[in-house]
């Protein structure tokens, strides 16, 4: 009993250190979106290419990756190469489609961006007043949502997507709910 404090003291120190060790893996920016598991907010919005408006519901029955970006966003430049690769890689799949939402931006700037870094080829929503972005609870760029065939948001990724993301994160989710 006399030496109980010694045991307690050392255990507390070790527990706190252990907690930090485990906690290091946490990403402080990774705030779980309350929208995950909820139906995605529907939209019909103008397209960047001034073609026909884009409607989310029109993609029902397929998994939709919705990528929010802007030409003003530095990390989007870094992410772009992977988006190009992902678009090429998944071009053959009929259960998966990608769209982009260019928000808080000018047409001029966005076109310049795509001209400089390459156009991944999928359709882009043009959202200068952030109507879609606010509905979806976007608070930075880039952010990416994965919507299932029933229109439910299954995953939200904050920050640039990285090579291997599709295989590590998207495919397992899609596997569960084909």
């Amino acid at each position, binding site marked *: 009993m006399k030496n109980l404090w*010694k045991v307690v*003291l050392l255990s507390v*120190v070790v527990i706190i*250190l252990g*907690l*930090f060790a*485990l*906690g290091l893996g946490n990403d*402080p920016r990774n*705030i779980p979106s309350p929208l995950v598991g909820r139906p995605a907010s529907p939209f019909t919005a103008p397209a960047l290419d001034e073609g026909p408006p884009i409607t989310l519901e029109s993609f029902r029955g397929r998994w939709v990756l919705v990528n929010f970006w802007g030409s003003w966003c530095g990390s989007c430049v870094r992410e772009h190469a992977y988006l190009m690769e992902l678009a090429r890689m998944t071009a053959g799949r009929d259960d998966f489609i990608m769209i982009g939402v260019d928000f808080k931006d000018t047409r001029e700037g966005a076109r310049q961006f795509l001209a400089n870094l390459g156009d991944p080829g999928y359709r882009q929503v043009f959202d200068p007043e952030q109507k879609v972005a606010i509905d979806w609870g976007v608070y930075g760029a880039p952010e990416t949502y994965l919507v299932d065939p029933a229109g439910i948001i299954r995953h939200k990724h904050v920050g640039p997507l990285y090579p291997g993301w599709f295989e590590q994160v998207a495919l397992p989710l899609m596997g569960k709910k084909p």
Partner: protein
Amino acid sequence: MWIEIAHFSTIIALLLALLQVAAPLVGVGLQRPVWIRVGRQAAFVIAALLTLATVGLTLSFLHHDFSVKYVAEHASRSLPIFYLVTALWGGHEGSLLFWAWLLALFTAIAVWWHWSTHGRTIPWILAILGVVNSGFLVLVLFLSSPFERLLQPPFDGRDLNPLLQDPGMVFHPPFLYMGYVGFAIPFAFAMAALINGRISDEWILATRRWTLFSWAMLSTGIIFGAYWAYYELGWGGYWAWDPVENASFMPWLIGTAFLHSVMVQERRRMFKIWNLFLIITTFALSLLGTFLVRSGVLSSVHAFASDPGRGVYILMFMAVVLIFSFGLLVFRSDRLRTEVRLESPFSMEAAFLFNNLFLVIAGVTVLLGTLYPLAVETLGNSKVTVGAPYYNKVFIPIMLGTLLLMGVGPLLAWRGADGARLFERLKKPLAAGLAGLVACIFLGVNHPYGVATVGLLLFVIFSHLTDVWGGVARRRTNTGESLPAAVFGLLIRNKRRYGGFMVHFGVLMMAAGFVGSGLFQEEKNLILAQGDSVVIGRWRLTFEKLIEVKGSNWNAQEGIIQVDGPGVKMTMHPQKRVYENHAMPTTEAAIFSGLREDLYIVLGDAVTENTWAFRIYRNPLVSWIWSGSMVMAMGVFFALMQGRRLGKKTV
């Protein structure tokens, strides 16, 4: 050019720091003092080299050398020179270099001062401080180097984060670091005492000034942080119980406990293990503070760039230091047992014991609140935040208890007070406190904490005055001095005691400020068009117009508000600034500070074409916090002037 010199000197400093660890240990092992002297020279040279490194980095800033990555990320051509110099600690890498530099300076000073008086402990002190500094230098050199060059230097830098372009933020980090690093010296002395197994209480006396100095620096640093939050962040408050704020507050609480309990060891040879525990914990919490801020393990509004690689290293470093020091404490403590027992619950030492318990409980409270979200996120899978409601609930009662002790303490005697005499001395303070309570109730203050604080404040003030008065009266009967001469003579004779009293007065002023602004703040959210008037408390505000203003590296919208208050007529200028290179606007609140309350105006967004949102606060007694902290600093300064009193008899 300069940056290479800085880089190179830091590399040599690291090598020498390893030498500073090894040489004195070899010297002790071989009984060859010359090796210990090598360690001492190493400490001096490290201090010089790291000074050179710091100067080099600063010069890179002054020369706008944007080929240096750190400079490019934290400065720009239009940044005013004041912020250019202080951008040194504007980011992670530079602050770590700054940390290491301070530690090297303090080490050199400590070795120089204590060399001849502490021959037996100095080798261990050198080695311990060398280990700590090598740890930081490895971090600076390998994991977060401020010396990196960019292959393609930009024409202009990215500029310092606008929130950091504020005098409060300029002084916040250096003071905080001086506090953190300063505690390394008493820590090293304590460890050396443990390793040596010398039961002597010498280390307590030797480090008294270091402790006081570090404590004052840490306090000032925390206050600067609060001041910055109040003036720059524009949310009407100064303390948000954010994990990073807590990180600096925890070592302060435990350091405060240490500051008090060393006196017991000095006079009564008690609390030996407890003091070692306190100083080790204080320093451990200082490291923890650095870890929390720099690793990104906790989410925080401070949102510093986080990097897990760094986090892993800092954690490992911290684990080594913590397990070694607490382990040593546990395994060596049996040698330090004291035979002295507490004799009376109404003695000075008992008051200190309770003071310590309260402060440590307060520290544990903050620690739990800080770690709980981390634990939930790590072990469960959800996010929680612990905010002001928790802390207010737990913290305020503990602090009120501490105030009560603060009032009783000075009137108690070592070893135990005679009950009747104690009551005699307590009579006036108690009466004053009760009078305060009654007055509050009559004045319509109905918040229990508010009433309790007023009562306690008066109680403490009167107990301190009673003590001073008693001393003055005794002095006058003995010497026949005039009243002012007696007061002066008394204060000068025991600077340490009366410096402590001054610190207590500062704390009281701050407590008044905390309670006043915490409980009685008034907030109004308004939408005003040009020409609108509102009345808030004693103030009548008229929104005259909105103008555009331009600064050296920012543009702002500025509201012109005519304020008509009791005895003052003035114009206030709340701003919303947009800094070049930064998209996020920052608020510059317009603040009128008065003795009774602050008027605090924040300009919000435009609501329609010509109406704007405003947030207006009345913050009672906030200026008491800042002036209280100055009184506190003066008190510490006064106490520091007291030399060592080695010959003082124990009771």
